[in-house]
C-alpha cells in the first residue's frame, strides 16, 4: 500500500483511460439510479408499514455512508457470498444504487408536489393503481423534478472516478500477490 512514483505512473494512465469508463459508468449508473430511485419512492408510499419501514432504513443507510466504502464492500465482500463482478460492473452497480437513494428523495418531493386532488380525481374515476401512477401522478411529478435529477447525473460524473480506484487496487492487489 505504499504508493511510490512507480505505482503512480502505473496508476495515472489508467486514470485517464478511465475517462471513457467514467462516461460509461455514469450512463449505466444513471439508468440504475433513475429506475431504482423510483422504486424506492413508490415503496415509501406503500400502505404497508412492513414495506415502508425497511425501505426507509435501507435508503437512509446507503445515503449516509461513503460510496467508496460501499464499492469496497461490493468488490471484496460480495464475492465471498457469490457474485464476483469486474471493477466496472461493481462501480456501475455501486454508483447506481448509491445515487438511487438521492433520486428517491427527488421523486418523493416531486410526487408530494402533485396536488392531492389529482389522487382523488383518479380514485373517483376508479382508475387502477398502476394507471393512476403511470398516466396521472408520474407525468406531473417528472416535469417538476427533471432539473434536480440532472444535478445528480453531474454528481455521478464527479464520483465515477472512484471506480478507477477499485480497478487500481485490484491491479495493485494482484501485483502484491
Amino acid at each position, binding site marked *: 500500500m505504499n504508493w511510490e512514483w512507480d505505482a503512480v505512473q502505473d496508476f495515472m494512465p489508467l486514470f485517464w483511460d478511465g475517462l471513457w469508463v467514467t462516461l460509461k459508468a455514469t450512463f449505466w449508473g444513471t439508468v440504475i439510479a433513475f429506475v431504482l430511485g423510483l422504486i424506492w419512492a413508490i415503496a415509501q408510499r406503500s400502505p404497508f408499514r412492513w414495506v415502508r419501514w425497511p425501505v426507509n432504513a435501507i435508503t437512509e443507510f446507503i445515503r449516509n455512508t461513503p460510496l467508496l466504502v460501499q464499492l469496497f464492500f461490493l468488490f471484496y465482500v460480495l464475492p465471498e457470498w457469490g457474485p464476483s463482478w469486474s471493477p466496472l460492473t461493481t462501480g456501475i452497480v455501486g454508483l447506481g444504487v448509491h445515487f438511487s437513494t438521492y433520486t428517491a428523495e427527488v421523486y418523493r418531493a416531486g410526487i408530494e408536489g402533485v*396536488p392531492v386532488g*389529482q389522487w382523488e380525481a383518479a*380514485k*373517483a374515476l*376508479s*382508475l387502477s393503481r398502476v394507471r393512476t401512477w403511470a398516466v*396521472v401522478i408520474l407525468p406531473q411529478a417528472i416535469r417538476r423534478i427533471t432539473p434536480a435529477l440532472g444535478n445528480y447525473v453531474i454528481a455521478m460524473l464527479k464520483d465515477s472516478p472512484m471506480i478507477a480506484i477499485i480497478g487500481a487496487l485490484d491491479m495493485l492487489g494482484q501485483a502484491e500477490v
Partner: protein
Amino acid sequence: MPASVDSQESNGQSRASGAELVRFNKITKRFGDVKVLDELSFSVDTGKHVTLIGPSGSGKTTILRLLMTLLTPDEGSIVVDGDYLTHQEKNGKLVKPSEKHVREVRKKIGMVFQQFNLFPNMKVLRNVTEAPRHVLGLPKDEAVHRAEELIELVGLSEHLDKYPSQLSGGQQQRVAIARALAMRPQVLCLDEVTAALDPELVAGVLDVLRDIAQTADITMLVVTHEMSFARDISDAVLMFDAGKIIESGPPDKIFTDPEHGRTREFLSTVLRGL
C-alpha cells in the same frame, strides 16, 4: 318521499324498496377526537336529486367524500344499489371489503370537485376518455364518441384539443362534469362545484347542470350555496347542522316555510348574500 331520514335501525339485509339507491346506515365519522358525523342515516331513491345545505363545517363534504370512498367511516355502513360500499358480504357475514369489491361498487358513483381536479397533463378529450377506456374497457372510438357527445353537451366542442390550463375555470368545471358523466355513474356527487369560480362564470356551469338534471335520469347528491339552483333541481333538501340532519323535505317547503329555527337562520344568511 325521495330522500328519507330515519332513525330506526336497519339490519342492512333488506333491500326494502327497489327504488332506494344510496343508503347511509348510522354512519359515524371522526377526525381525531372530533365527531363530525354522529350515527347519520338517510337514503336517496333512484333518479332523485337531493341537495345538502347547511353551514360550513356541518359535514356535507364529508358525506360526499364517504360515498366516493375518499374517506372511510368509523362506524356504520353505506349501501349503493343494493351492494355494500363499506363492507363485503361473505358467508352471510359482513367483512372488510376487498379493493376489488370497492372498485366495482365505486364505479356506480361519480364526483365533480370544487377545484375541478382535471388532469393537467392530458388534453380535454383525453381527460374524458381516459377512465371509460381503461376502467370500463370501452374501445377507443366508442369512448371518443361518448366523450365528444358529452363535451358538446357542456358546450366545449371547440376545445377538445386544449389543455385544461388553456381554459377558464368555468370551462374546466364543465369538462370535469363531462368527465364524471362519461363513466355513466348512477349517482353523481357535486360538492360546491361553483364555489371556486369567478362570479360571471357560475351561471354557465349551473345551466349545464340544470340541463343534465332535467334530461338525464341520474341520481344527484348536490352540495351548493346557490339556493335558486337548488330549488330548481332538487326533489328533496336536507338541512345539516353539526353533523346531523335537522330538517328535510321538498324544496318549496324548506325554502319558503322551514320549521327549524336554525334552517331559517341559515337561509337568511345565505340569501342575504344574493
